[in-house]
């Protein structure tokens, strides 16, 4: 019997949160993540072990997550756009205190309330939104299967490595309804360990008297983040029938644009154009080594995204070779496969 089900993206996310053994959600309703909040409320009405609190705003929701995880609960929040902005204070505190903070972010058009469904303009905000050094895990799913598996991963990474972990998606993916199957390989949950043993005391600090003390703490955190990066960095290289060593042209896209770019690559390969897709799944940490391995042999990079260059800037920041970069940059607007095909074909 087929285990395929016809589900919305947010149903898949909710199932992943439950399978991750999360017990508490704190949030404030905002499109396109409202269904995650209302869905968790429904779950909590049916299962007395699950709890949900709609707070007065996203500031309170963020700090409620900080408090809950310090008290030993597996908690999370979901937000979007201006809500992600308001949550930066709590995210920054979680980054400083190394709290296992899980946030599910549905990007919407900005600035401010902008548009309500779709964008890719919260990349910078998710990675670097706080007044720290951007030591956050940010994963970008491209389809329903990844919505599930990466939601499971953000929980596991948050609890294993103790950095804020963000699932960065959008309303297109959350509201998409499509067939979905659970992964064949069972995903184990990271064991929930108390931040502070009940028999001891620990001062988890978010403020320091001495500047050098803070600096040494940040250096240690940076070292931890870099060591962790080798283990969790994730990407996909896609090409239908061209040897990767021989591609010449690289399309770079993430999230749902990464999904549409596969259609474009298929079409371009059919037309004998040597092109592949490089899709960073982890935007932070960024798959720098893997990009540079490809970049040595690449003549052109085409960055395609629904923002004015937030992914392009990440690529530039990580690229160690001189490669011509152009692309499609459409803030808050989806990218069609035909546009990517036209861009690559028109490149001389």
């Amino acid at each position: 019997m087929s285990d395929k089900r016809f589900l919305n993206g947010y149903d898949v996310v909710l199932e992943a949160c439950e399978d991750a053994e999360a017990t508490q959600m704190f949030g404030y309703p905002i499109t396109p993540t409202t269904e995650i909040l209302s869905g968790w409320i429904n779950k909590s009405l049916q299962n007395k072990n699950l709890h949900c609190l709609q707070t007065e705003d996203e500031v309170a929701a963020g700090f409620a997550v900080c408090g809950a995880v310090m008290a030993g609960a597996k908690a999370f929040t979901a937000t979007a756009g201006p809500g992600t902005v308001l949550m930066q204070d709590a995210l920054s505190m979680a980054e400083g205190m190394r709290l296992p903070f899980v946030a599910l972010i549905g990007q919407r058009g900005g600035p401010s309330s902008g548009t309500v469904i779709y964008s890719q303009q919260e990349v910078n905000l998710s990675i670097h939104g706080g007044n720290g050094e951007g030591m956050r895990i940010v994963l970008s799913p491209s389809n329903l299967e990844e919505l599930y598996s990466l939601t499971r991963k953000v929980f596991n990474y948050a609890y294993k490595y103790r950095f804020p972990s963000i699932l960065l998606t959008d309303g297109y993916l959350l509201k998409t309804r499509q067939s979905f199957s659970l992964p064949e390989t069972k995903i184990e949950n990271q064991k929930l360990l108390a931040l502070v043993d009940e028999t001891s005391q620990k001062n988890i600090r978010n403020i320091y008297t001495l500047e050098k003390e803070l600096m040494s703490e940040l250096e240690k955190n940076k070292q931890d983040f870099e060591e962790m990066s080798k283990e969790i960095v994730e990407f996909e290289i896609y090409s239908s029938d061209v040897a990767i060593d021989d591609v010449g042209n690289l399309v770079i896209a993430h999230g749902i644009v990464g999904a549409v770019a596969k259609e474009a690559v298929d079409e371009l390969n059919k037309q004998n154009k040597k092109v592949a897709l490089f899709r960073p799944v982890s935007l932070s940490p960024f798959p720098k080594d893997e990009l540079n391995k490809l970049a040595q042999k690449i003549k052109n990079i085409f960055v395609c995204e629904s923002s004015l260059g937030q992914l392009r800037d990440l690529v530039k920041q990580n690229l160690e070779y001189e490669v011509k970069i152009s692309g499609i940059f459409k803030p808050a607007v989806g990218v069609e496969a035909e546009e990517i095909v036209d861009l690559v074909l028109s490149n001389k």
Partner: protein
Amino acid sequence: MKFKILLAGDGGQGVQTIAKIVSECFFAKNFEVISIPNYGLEQRGGVSLSFIQVSDKQIFYPKFAKADFLLLMSEQARERTSEHVSADTEIIDFKNYQEIILQNKISRSSLNIFFLGVVAKFLSEKKLISKDDIFVIFEKKLASKKNWEENKQVFEIGFLI
């Protein structure tokens, strides 16, 4: 094979109900199907859209530029969907059904079910899915709701036109 369907009407007209029934029907018949609503601020009088794609292969992206088939249920939906219409787009336009709707005294609350019947006829003529395929899902979704008998009749009227 890939078939792209765009359903469009005013917020509250029941476009998303049609979309749910049609897309679940394709899923039940083992098609690859992907659907996405687009309803920004419809409670403030906007247009409600639903993009549905059906294929025998995996579909990566829920939106599309040009529709193969468009259902228009309101005047403001016409303007909103114009960018998705090509010379090849087949359109069911509410304007062409005004007289039948009046003659059969179809209520506003059943209008979407009338158009579900019209859509069922179109898709069965295309040999994509049959009337019975759609009726099974329609019944599963709405038989326990009020006005079921009226909705059943209205569906038949839409299909028989």
